[in-house]
């Protein structure tokens, strides 16, 4: 087995991982960094983010506004001290990215431009047309090439963490091109593997979004926090789930039902303003919009399409072709290529699809997990800024702000840590290799990977969708337990070493089943409705007395996870009614008056 000695190893080469790698390299050029990614870093799913990144920019905006939008948007399940740090660092990090070459869209006078986004009081979303994630990722990847201390392990797949003396000391990876194992020793391990939305059926996510890092930490006793909060993005392409960015609405798009009626005004997001108004109608938060779709469908007011199923229309026609081509070029192309329609002439059929996992590996404000030496950042982590519902354009900023925080913290830890015992770590790594190889070499299995994956995705959709009920969630928990059992009988067609994606897909499925269980069990345990977790079985209201708490799922080998409730850090925003539209404005007013 090859051994590579690093100071910091980062698992995941998306936006968060790259930002962390650069932070380590800048904070101490003498530290050796190993950046492990199962795809070439610029393929990471950050690439698909469209709308933009939030950071206070306009003089009329303030950190306080961004703070309140975020905490209220998260239905008060945010770590408020962390959010305070986040909103202050956001503009710094976004400017840093500008210095590194990110082609942010600009105003005529040459400054960076900002656009409106759902749930935000003032326009503060920095954007690069509708390819913001793409540009952020490529800028970070290309900038990372500048630092000789970053050694990339591209197309390497992480199979386990090394833990000894009560601290995390490295990882074991497979080189996908050869099927060979390597051990990477490091005093600090940062997990930045992204979300887990692929455990659902219809999602906006790429095939790589399988929750690998979450499962790795989880199996080492680290809690997965707030996993029941899974965001449905309201405007996705039916069947494929591909994303039509929230910027479509930020730019002024409408959502209409089969009668051409802007139905959001019936769901506490009205009344209909004369012109687009922040936090009104289509500029409401994602959870509310997806929930409104659900009820429209119940009322029979969605459009029933023969092949696409139930949809509503995203209408961009009034924005005109020129504006659409400039601000939403990717959306324009996607509508043309994938759906064969012209958004300047036809409304786009859309429906909600799984988009984001608010929860993740529980970490503190320094991105440190409960296992010393282990850090987590980005979508795989739960640092506490999203709460029960993430506001659009907070996640891209998150990976920059906390990528840097984790990089600096991991560097500091690596400098002070005692050297590990290489010989015993190697022994551990060899045991891991044997275990993982056994999955490939075993014979006689009858369960197809695709079969189990499909059943998992379907049961998650059934039990943990936009609205949830006790009996369907229970059925999902039971089904997942069954699938866990059936996974032991998996069959792998490909026995070869070079580029064995059949084997890697099976390992991913194993990760996914763990993560799915943490989601379903956290969900069934939360007997209230909050943010993206909405119930229709007697728990329709938020219950701050019992559930102004984080859910923490702990791994139990061979069984269902153990769910524990943890405290929420509240600094300056006490829970209040979460209101948008005119009701929201009124609530804001009242809050101001009571503060005076």
């Amino acid at each position, binding site marked *: 087995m090859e051994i590579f000695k690093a100071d910091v190893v980062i698992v995941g080469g998306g936006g968060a991982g790259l930002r962390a790698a650069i932070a380590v390299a800048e904070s101490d050029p003498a530290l050796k960094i190993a950046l492990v990614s199962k*795809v*070439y870093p*610029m*393929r*990471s*799913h950050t*690439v*698909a983010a469209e709308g933009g990144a939030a950071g206070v920019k306009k003089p009329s905006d303030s950190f306080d506004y961004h703070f309140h939008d975020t905490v209220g948007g998260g239905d008060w399940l945010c770590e408020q001290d962390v959010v305070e740090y986040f909103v202050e660092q956001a503009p*710094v990090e976004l*400017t*840093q990215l*500008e*210095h*590194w*070459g990110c*082609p*942010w869209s*600009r105003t*005529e*006078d*040459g*400054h*960076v431009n900002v656009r409106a986004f759902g749930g935000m009081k003032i326009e503060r979303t920095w954007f690069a047309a509708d*390819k913001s994630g*793409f*540009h952020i990722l*490529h800028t970070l990847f*290309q*900038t990372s*090439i*500048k630092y000789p201390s970053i050694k990339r392990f*591209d197309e390497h797949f992480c199979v386990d963490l090394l833990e000894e003396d009560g601290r995390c000391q490295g990882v074991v990876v497979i080189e996908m091109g050869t099927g060979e194992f390597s051990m990477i020793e490091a005093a600090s391990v940062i997990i930045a593997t992204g979300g887990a939305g692929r455990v659902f059926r219809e999602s906006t996510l*790429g*095939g*790589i979004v399988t929750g690998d890092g979450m499962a790795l930490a989880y199996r080492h006793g680290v809690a997965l926090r707030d996993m029941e909060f899974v965001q449905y993005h309201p405007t996705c392409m039916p*069947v*494929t789930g*591909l*994303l039509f960015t929230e910027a479509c609405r930020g730019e002024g798009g409408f959502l209409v039902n089969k009668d051409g009626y802007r139905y959001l005004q019936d769901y506490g997001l009205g009344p209909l303003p004369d012109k687009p108004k922040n936090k009104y109608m289509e500029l409401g938060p994602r959870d509310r919009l997806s929930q409104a779709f659900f009820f429209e469908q119940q009322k029979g007011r969605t459009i029933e399409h*023969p*092949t696409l199923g139930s949809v509503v229309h995203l209408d961009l026609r009034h924005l005109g072709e020129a504006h659409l081509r400039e601000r939403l070029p*990717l959306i324009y*192309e*996607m509508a043309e*290529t*994938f759906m064969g329609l012209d958004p300047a002439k036809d409304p786009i059929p859309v429906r909600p699809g799984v988009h984001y996992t608010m929860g993740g590996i529980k970490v503190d404000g320094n991105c440190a997990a409960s296992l010393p030496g282990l850090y987590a950042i980005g979508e795989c982590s739960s640092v506490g800024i999203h709460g029960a519902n993430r506001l659009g354009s907070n996640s891209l900023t998150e990976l920059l702000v906390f990528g840097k925080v984790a990089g600096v913290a991991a560097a500091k830890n690596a400098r002070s840590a005692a050297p590990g015992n290489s010989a015993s770590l190697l022994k551990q790594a060899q045991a891991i290799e044997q275990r993982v190889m056994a999955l490939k070499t075993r014979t006689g299995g009858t369960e*197809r*990977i*695709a079969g189990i994956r499909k059943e998992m995705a379907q049961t998650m959709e059934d039990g943990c969708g936009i609205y949830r009920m006790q009996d369907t969630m229970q059925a999902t928990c039971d089904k997942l337990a069954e699938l866990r059992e059936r996974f032991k009988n998996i069959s*792998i*067609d*490909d026995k*070869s*070493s*070079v*580029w*064995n*994606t*059949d084997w890697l*897909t099976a390992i991913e499925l194993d990760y996914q089943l763990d993560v799915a269980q943490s989601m379903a069990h956290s969900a069934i345990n939360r007997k209230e409705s909050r943010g993206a977790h909405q119930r229709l079985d007697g728990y329709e209201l938020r219950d701050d007395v019992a559930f102004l708490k984080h859910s923490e799922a702990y791994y139990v080998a061979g069984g269902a996870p153990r769910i524990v409730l943890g405290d929420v850090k509240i600094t300056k925003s006490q829970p209040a009614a979460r209101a948008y539209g005119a009701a929201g404005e009124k609530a804001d007013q009242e809050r101001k008056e009571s503060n005076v």
Partner: protein
Amino acid sequence: MSENHKIIEIEVLRYNPESDDEPHLEVYKVPFSDDMSVLQGAQYIKDNFDGSLTFRWSCRMAICGSCGMMINGIPKLSCETFLRDYYPSRIRIEAMANFPIEKDLVVDLSGFIEKLESIQPYIIAKEPRTLEQGEYLQTPEEFNRYIQFTSCINCTLCYAACPQFGLNPDFIGPAAIALLHRYNMDSRDGAAAQRMELVASEEGVFNCSAVGYCSEVCPKHVDPANAVNINKTNAAKDYFLRFLSPKGGSK
């Protein structure tokens, strides 16, 4: 997906380095619906017929750049190419041309990545600025000068379209040069002269004979051929001007 499936024949160039001496074709009969991409066709084969079929993919929306392949001999992203456009004929998919095949549809991209790294694809500031000073200003003209060349998704279809790269694998090639040009044209950057050494080298732009197919197949309309040819002019100027002025051109 609707239930009344049509069946399309997908012919796949298979190669397993551990058992095959050379690649061979295999045909699969795949039920499909009109919304299915070629990528989904390949996924269907992997899920249902042969789990060992190997290909790269991720985002499914033509932005991650993973899923390029030759589709009936033309370099395309398989996620945005649809089976319905080939039916009822048989469709053939092969690994991207001009690259060594690792396994089935997966090619060796390490050479491309090295090239990407070699062009110094980052801002080397003309006038360094601190974060406190805020952002650099860029007028719409300055912005428009480079923005097109930022759209490259590194899918390498342009390399699969470039016979000069096929004939000389050392050629820096279209995407890397387009990215180099992107940084040269950025008003924040001041390192065009440093990058000229590579542009003007024997691995540089003069390998290009203006076939132009790279720009034809580019799914993001980057027009790499234009970037390469503009740099030929720049390199030629640099070549002759260095005799005139001690500062003109690089060493």
